[in-house]
């Protein structure tokens, strides 16, 4: 009987070897995947036991961790939660994280390589390891003004304000917003009900409209048409275009009308300057057909539209002008309709580039990374992405935008500050006649020495039934208020 017993012993050893082999596979080969799986709560739980760094802007602390006596040692707290939520994001034990909390997680939790020296000294001195701090480029005054402007009126929308010369993001607002404190709560039930409420909210509160959603830019896209036209050298602000109230799209029977079916001024033709100011669709349909798809597409790309890997450091949704199979489509696209879709950030980048002599700057939210003891570790340097238009074209375009603003009605004009602007009113949805249009206002100021560029988007005219809403009436006052805050004229 001994031979089979020995064979059984060998079989047992083989079984144990199989187990060890499989455990090695699970715990060594696959370990990384399992460890970093978003459904694995352990990583987050471990992070909660460390003091996470703070997020601040101009000395104002937006997010910080305070010690508690419950199981999760540190509670994440946000001051002015909803106002800053699109930027800070949230940091939740059960629902992961978003915004800067997610994008700058390595810094905030202290694992970033740039904080290595301090980590080492923590290890040696036995101090509790803690995270680094993130200082944002935001201007609290701009942020507050933009947020209040939108929420006071109950608008669903977004405001982005940039410093044209550097790409610093001075304001980034999305409304309606949510309070990240509720998702960071250590009370599981409160957290869960907040999460449910946020997810079911209509309009949605969790996405950051400024960078995660794209909208038809409507007439604000005409700035890009003009840029392409001026850059071609064949057009000047005085070039004449059709003033007809309607035009048949090339190769189709479809009529393209001007806003309210108006003619573009009183004459047979209208200058490019007037066509931009009056935002005449027919003139731009003619212009785009003359310029051709390639000119407009490449001009749009030079402004950054179509860039897929833009990060601020949160990833930004890709803006696009869509497929343009024929001239009729090009004509529709040239007035910012059809498949053209921009993020509010992208639209702000367009005007910021015009303000900055045609140079597109990398937009960014993080101004500085600080070590645990608030010493600067890394300061973001302005980064030039490229030259979208010549500086002479930029100057001409600025003049035309000044002309726009000076002919726009609407409230909120600032005495002594010359704004350069363009409004937009974009149809959207399956039945555009039944839903109020998205309205835009993109601008920069002062025109002669630009300090701030803004893009304001208000979804569905602020009120779905307000079919008469336009960029000029709804979005422009908000944009002007934000500019006023950025220039500090009422401080």
């Amino acid at each position: 009987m001994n031979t089979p017993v020995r064979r059984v012993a060998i079989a047992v050893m083989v079984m144990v070897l199989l187990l060890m082999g499989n455990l090695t596979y699970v715990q060594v080969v696959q370990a990384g995947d399992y460890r970093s799986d978003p459904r694995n709560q352990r990583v987050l739980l471990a992070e909660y036991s460390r003091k996470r760094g703070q997020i601040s802007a101009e000395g104002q602390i937006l997010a910080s961790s305070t010690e508690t006596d419950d199981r999760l040692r540190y509670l994440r707290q946000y001051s002015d939660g909803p106002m800053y939520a699109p930027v800070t994001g949230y940091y939740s034990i059960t629902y992961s994280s978003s915004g800067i909390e997610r994008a700058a997680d390595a810094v905030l939790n202290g694992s970033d390589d740039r904080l290595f020296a301090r980590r080492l000294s923590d290890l040696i001195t036995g101090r509790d390891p803690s995270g680094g701090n993130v200082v944002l480029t935001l201007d609290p005054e701009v942020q507050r003004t933009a947020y209040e402007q939108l929420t006071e009126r109950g608008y669903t929308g977004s405001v982005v304000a940039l410093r044209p010369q550097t790409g610093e993001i001075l304001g980034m607002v999305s409304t309606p917003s949510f309070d990240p404190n509720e998702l960071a709560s250590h009370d599981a039930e409160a957290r869960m009900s907040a999460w449910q409420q946020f997810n079911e909210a209509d309009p949605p509160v969790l996405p950051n409209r400024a960078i995660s959603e794209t909208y038809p830019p409507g007439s604000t896209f005409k700035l890009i048409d003009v840029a392409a036209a001026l850059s071609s050298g064949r057009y000047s602000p005085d070039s004449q275009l059709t003033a007809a109230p309607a035009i048949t799209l090339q190769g189709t029977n479809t009529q393209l009308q001007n806003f309210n079916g108006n003619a573009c001024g009183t004459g047979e033709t209208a200058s490019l300057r007037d066509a931009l100011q009056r935002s005449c669709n027919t003139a731009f349909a003619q212009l785009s057909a003359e310029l051709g798809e390639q000119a407009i597409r490449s001009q749009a790309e030079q402004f950054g539209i179509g860039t897929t890997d833009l990060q601020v450091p949160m990833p930004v949704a890709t803006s696009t002008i869509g497929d343009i199979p024929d001239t009729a489509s090009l004509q529709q696209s040239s007035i910012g309709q059809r498949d053209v879709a921009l993020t509010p950030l992208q639209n702000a980048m367009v005007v910021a580039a015009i303000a900055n002599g045609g140079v597109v700057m990398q937009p960014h939210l993080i101004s500085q990374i600080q070590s645990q003891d608030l010493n600067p570790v890394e300061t973001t340097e302005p980064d030039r992405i490229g030259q979208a238009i010549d500086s002479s074209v930029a100057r001409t375009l600025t003049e035309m935008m000044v002309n726009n603003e000076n002919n726009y009605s609407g409230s909120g004009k600032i005495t002594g500050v010359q704004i350069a602007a363009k409004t937009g009113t974009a149809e959207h949805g399956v039945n555009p006649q039944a839903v109020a249009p998205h309205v835009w206002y993109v601008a920069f100021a002062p025109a002669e020495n630009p300090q701030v560029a803004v893009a304001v988007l208000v979804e569905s005219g602020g009120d779905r039934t307000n079919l008469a809403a336009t960029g000029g009436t709804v979005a422009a006052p908000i944009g002007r208020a934000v500019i006023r805050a950025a220039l500090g004229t009422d401080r």
Partner: protein
Amino acid sequence: MIPEPRTGSPPPSPAPLPTGRGIELVLLAFAAVLVTGALALVEANQEQELTQTLLWVGLAYLALFAIAHIAVRRFAPFADPLVLPCVALLNGLGLVMIRRLDLARVERALAAGRDAPVELVSRQVAWTAIGVALFVAVMWVVRDHRTISRYAYTAGFGGLVLLALPGLLPSSISEVNGAKLWIRIGGVGIQPGEFAKILLIVFFAAFLVQKRDLFSTAGRRFLGMELPRARDLAPLVVAWGLSVGVLVLERDLGTSLLFFGIVLVLLYVATERVSWLLIGLSFFLGGCLIAYQLFGHVRVRVQVWLDPFADFDNTGFQIAQALFGLGTGGVGGTGLGAGRPDLVPYAESDFMLSSLGEELGLIGLAAILIVYLVLITRGLRSALAVRDSFGKLLATGLAFTLALQIFIVIGGASKLIPLTGLTLPFLSYGGSSLVANYALVAMLLRISNAARAPLPRRPSTPLPPIAEAGTELVERPS
């Protein structure tokens, strides 16, 4: 490798054989140091001062194994010295992990504003005490393992009843989490299947020894193997039927698999015929196919095994959490008390493996596997050394059941094979498993004592030098 059995001529030294009790004591002390150190580490890592629980768990542990050691000295002085320390280490590590999970659950309950839950570690210590008591009792009552074979049919009948009982009882008494394995009366539950396992091994060992010649009778030859005669397949068919019965009535894949595997190995060892293994495996495969076709819960298990993340929130949740735990532990583990094994459901019973794997890492699990391997091979070593066939079969069966059980449990929790609900012997929380395994180890020690004890009438005269010895006819060891 297994050393050669000592079946040849007796050793030349007339001095009394070393009993190994001294080694056992040293190893037990080593296990105790490891376990108390680990307990202290758990409490320290949980940022608590050393509590009274630590003190009394530690003392109870020391006292229980002191008693076990004295019992071995008294009743089985020649027993294998490695077996009890292995058991002590495994049981101790189990207590440490159960205590660690207790702390996590208390903390969680306090955070949620609930009352502190019952401390499982106290219960497990109580079960250990009952286990050690049964261990001592078995050693004391069974002075010679061969006497057990007289009660083979009683054991077989008892085992059958215990195995079938929960399946036949109403679900209100026997069903927990979908498997009908329990008898619960007044808050205390036992799983009779754990005891049935041992009784049935006793029965099959005795039965096969009695009918050994019968099963060895050759039938037809096929592919160079001697096939058994068709009517001799009866025991295998009965075992197979029982396994399927357990699967159907009790919905317990693990016990069913375990039981069939043991019978198969006992048949093979008794008859030395590979053909039995092949026939058994084909029965097994057939059973698997039928079970897969007929039972939804078996199909679900297989699907979860293939991809636990496909249905993460529902059926795949347990195994996915276990894999997260194992993966997070990695090679070195998080350290005792520093991980989050409590995130895995049934962390202290079915998924004890992932709890240990998370905090002790691959290194810790490898060490635990080696302790199991030592325990099992010492059991098989006794099977080789013991002189009677019944003892050989019984020891093989007892040792192999441990091996198969850890294979099923660890393989299941680490996604090597489909998951089945079984406990890790000595490590997992669960009274029946612990107590039954103490009885199992007591019997193994009894057999190893018989194997290692000096022969009663050993020639005391020194042998002549080999050069002067004449040619001697010796019987070839079987």
